[in-house]
């Protein structure tokens, strides 16, 4: 985001805090179905939900977005391209002037798809990659997923698709690879986007092991100061502002103010990291549709009022970090009016150590199930993944997870 003239003035930030007539940046998860099972999946995706919006319902949402002049929508999932009507919906949106940036693991971006995508100004593609090497990436995203993502990037690049996005969730394991990620993006004519690991969805299971350490946060901050102008971050890292000056990007929590999430069944949440009843504002199928949820829901109105700094009120840096990320606090069991669990001044350390209750978990979980002792059990992948060489089951089998579930089958059988 670049202001038209000079840096954004504080009054503009204040306006954002009070909310806009329509979101600037709307995330729409089209399906909970996914052919991967990433350990940190923020939406606990895996299986399709039987109540996912139909094609006609999706088109009605797009009509509404057109009326509200939402310039573009970030479509994700799950893996959105596994929906049979994905390309139809993509065409429907772009024909109505609603741009689409969709996030994908790259498994469906073959040469023909890449060539067709390259012809539209209204489509942007974001390839997820969580390691600059197969070793680091595949431990989080599953065996073969690195090669799949790189293959998709090569196809887009060769098709002449410029400036697609390579999207990285920064973890303890990949934070040392930022330059390498940048080099990968540069090699394929893409732009690097980095975001923050949230303890949302299955992310809660791995957050303790994977979120960057304090020392790594400092290095991340320095890297962003040096490289941030050419790297997209959205509103990911404003909690780092207490380490120095504000970073490029949006330095406030946009939840319910300039961003929100529509989930596959049409539920509207304050942000993509907040799939929980606590942050549920309404459903697009309700009276008045999405626009009335955005403009009139009690939750969003509340989020647009000034928030209490609570335990952060005595902190000199409150004005720059604003208490950090709401979802990160909630899913680590911290009070909403206190420091972010990754507070760079360490102000949350005591509260984290003193927690008595188990942090809240999202009741929305579409992780694939496995049978353990005759009982269906959610199946997030363990972080200690077996390091096996990827050998396709069949010559034509391109599923990046081919063979991956052998371990689970053994358990069940």
């Amino acid at each position, binding site marked *: *985001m*670049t*202001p*038209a003239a000079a840096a954004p003035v504080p009054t503009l930030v204040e*306006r954002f805090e009070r909310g806009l*007539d329509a979101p600037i940046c709307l995330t729409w998860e089209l399906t909970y179905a996914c052919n991967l099972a990433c350990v940190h999946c923020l939406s606990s995706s895996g299986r399709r939900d039987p109540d996912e919006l139909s094609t006609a319902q999706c088109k009605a949402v797009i009509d509404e977005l057109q009326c509200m002049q939402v*310039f573009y929508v970030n479509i994700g999932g799950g893996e959105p391209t596994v929906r049979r009507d994905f390309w139809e919906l993509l065409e429907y949106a772009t024909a109505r002037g609603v*741009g689409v940036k969709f996030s994908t693991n790259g498994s469906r971006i073959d040469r023909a798809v890449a060539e067709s995508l390259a012809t539209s*100004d209204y489509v942007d593609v974001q390839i997820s990659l969580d390691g600059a090497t197969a070793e680091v990436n595949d431990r989080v995203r599953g065996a073969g997923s690195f090669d799949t993502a790189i293959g998709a990037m090569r196809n887009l690049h060769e098709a002449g698709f410029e400036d697609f996005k390579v999207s990285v969730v920064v973890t303890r394991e990949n934070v040392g690879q930022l330059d390498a990620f940048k080099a990968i993006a540069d090699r394929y004519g893409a732009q690097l986007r980095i975001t923050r690991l949230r303890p949302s969805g299955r992310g809660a299971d791995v957050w303790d092991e994977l979120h960057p350490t304090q020392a790594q946060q400092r290095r991340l901050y320095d890297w962003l100061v040096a490289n941030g102008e050419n790297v997209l971050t959205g509103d990911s890292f404003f909690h780092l502002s207490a380490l120095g000056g504000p970073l490029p990007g949006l330095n406030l929590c946009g939840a319910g103010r300039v961003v929100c999430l529509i989930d596959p069944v049409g539920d509207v949440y304050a942000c993509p990291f907040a799939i929980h009843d606590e942050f549920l504002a309404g459903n697009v199928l309700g009276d008045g549709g999405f626009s009335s949820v955005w403009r009139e829901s009690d939750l969003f109105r509340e989020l647009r009022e000034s928030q209490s700094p609570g335990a952060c009120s005595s902190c000199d840096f409150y004005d720059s970090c604003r208490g950090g990320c709401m979802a990160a606090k909630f899913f680590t069991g911290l009070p909403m009016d206190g420091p972010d669990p990754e507070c760079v001044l360490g102000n949350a350390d005591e509260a984290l150590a003193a927690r008595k209750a188990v942090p809240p978990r999202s009741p929305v979980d579409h992780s694939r199930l496995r049978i353990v002792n005759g009982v269906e059990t959610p199946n997030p992948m363990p972080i200690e993944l077996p390091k096996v060489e990827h050998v396709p089951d069949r010559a034509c089998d391109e599923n990046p997870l081919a063979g991956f579930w052998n371990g689970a089958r053994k358990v069940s059988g």
Partner: protein
Amino acid sequence: MPFDPALPWTLDPQVAIRPESFGGLAYHFGTRRLSFLKSPALRDLVLSLADHPSAEDAIEAEGIPASERRQYESALGTLAETGMITARTTNTEAMVAA
């Protein structure tokens, strides 16, 4: 191209403007760049550029006080640099209207 207020300008055809209480948002579908138009007057000015033989005339017609002209020209300059507005090579609309 560098911004010259004496020339005719127009909103780039790939740019959409959304009015907001503070002014507006401008989004360029080609560069995927988002810009903030920080006052309703700037938004109206940008939208009216195509109707005037020059940016200066558009500023005049919008009733921008002389003391603020430089500020508005500078904002238009930034929008020109980022491709949000482009110079019209011929004044087609005016010719058609005539």
